[in-house]
């Protein structure tokens, strides 16, 4: 039992050090030797957990993805209407990107590996599947238009959120991701929300963006 706990601590330390280095000097420039040095560990200790830089990257991608998925699920598990949970959940996840180092690093690695890593395919697939369950619910509840295909909407949402994050990283090192997410939703809403619910969700989105904007509310 104690050995397991120690082993888990070592594993976590390796991941944290790797994340720091990937953020500081980038994935290509980081060598396993650098990670060993940063983690203050032996070569043996590292190789016990990870046999290559790529397996380390996979672990970070999966770890980061789990954090984001849990955050999203904790919102959508609530008893609020599905579309409210989707929008609120997406904002909570976007927020997490600026505070959770592992999630951030995981996303960057995902983008770097995209086409070459199975973890990437699994991760994106998982997110779309989860989102599709929610969009289906939102269609059933009448907030999304009845003629829409749940999976197509889910892919559009996940795709445009990833895109917003990508553009934010390129333009402002991620600083304006919340505003971009809000702008994307303003464009999306009229395309997917049912006529009766549109006014409500315009307001819902406005309130959500305001809560995440840096400016304090006067009055």
């Amino acid at each position, binding site marked *: 039992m104690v050995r397991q706990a120690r082993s888990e601590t070592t594993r976590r330390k390796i991941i944290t050090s790797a994340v720091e280095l990937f953020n500081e000097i980038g994935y290509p420039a980081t060598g396993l030797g650098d990670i060993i040095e940063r983690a203050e560990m032996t070569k043996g200790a590292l190789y016990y957990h990870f046999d290559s830089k790529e397996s380390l990257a996979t672990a970070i991608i999966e770890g980061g993805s789990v954090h984001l998925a849990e955050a999203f699920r*904790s919102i959508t598990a609530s008893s*609020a209407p599905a579309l*409210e949970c989707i929008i*609120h959940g997406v904002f909570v996840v976007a927020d997490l990107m600026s505070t959770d180092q592992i999630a951030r690093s995981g996303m960057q690695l995902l983008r770097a590996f995209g086409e070459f890593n199975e973890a990437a395919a699994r991760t994106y697939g998982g997110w779309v599947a989860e989102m599709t369950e929610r969009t289906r619910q939102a269609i059933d509840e009448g907030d999304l238009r009845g003629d829409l295909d749940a999976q197509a909407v889910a892919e559009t949402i996940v795709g445009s959120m990833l895109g917003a994050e990508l553009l934010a990283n390129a333009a402002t090192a991620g600083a304006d991701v919340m505003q971009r997410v809000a702008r994307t939703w303003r464009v999306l809403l009229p395309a997917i929300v049912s006529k009766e619910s549109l006014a*409500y969700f315009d307001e*819902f989105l406005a309130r959500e963006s*305001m809560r995440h904007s840096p400016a304090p*509310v006067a*009055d």
Partner: protein
Amino acid sequence: MTEQLDRRADTTRLQILRAASRQFARKSYSVVSLDDILADAEVTKGAMYFHFRSKHALASAIIDYRAAVARASVDQLLARKLSGLETLIDISYLVAVEDIGDETARAGLNLLESIGRTDGLQGDFLGQWVTAFAAIARKAVKDGDLVAHRDSEGIARLLVSMYLGLRQTSNLAEPERFLRDLENMWVLVLPGFVKPDRIDYLNEFIKRRTAVALKKAAPL
């Protein structure tokens, strides 16, 4: 070894609390007998007296238990980071759905009304409830939903009174009626402290909560 015994004692205690709640949820305090609870809980008289010296002690324990559960639920709702006012609305619907369908919840609030007054139990529990709500109301001011200079503690006391009063004037055994009455109360009360331009949105928010609650609420 003692850890195992402690755990077993905890389970027995909880078993008794749940059996007692089943009784107190449906019958008034004076009418409930310890024998009924004993039979339901399937514990010995000795085990019962080890944990609870009297019916009153049992009732107090249920109230305390519910207070802890309620605090945890409120923390969970706050963690979702919705606006203050939306959180207050969500809390009231959560309390309503549990009051309708959960025996410990119903028992806890019934007992608070029947025996709570005499020992200051009511004062403690409700005092905590009001304090928690007042903090969330202050957040609602910062969110820009409330009219300026409204007294947060007054609003909190109003909302708590509102719910407790509704238990008397409506009927928990009829979930649809109870939830619609709750909705009506919120809609009537909002203009008292909410900015006029937010009211339409919040009315819609409240109606949606009623719709969700109706799906979840299953009577005792």
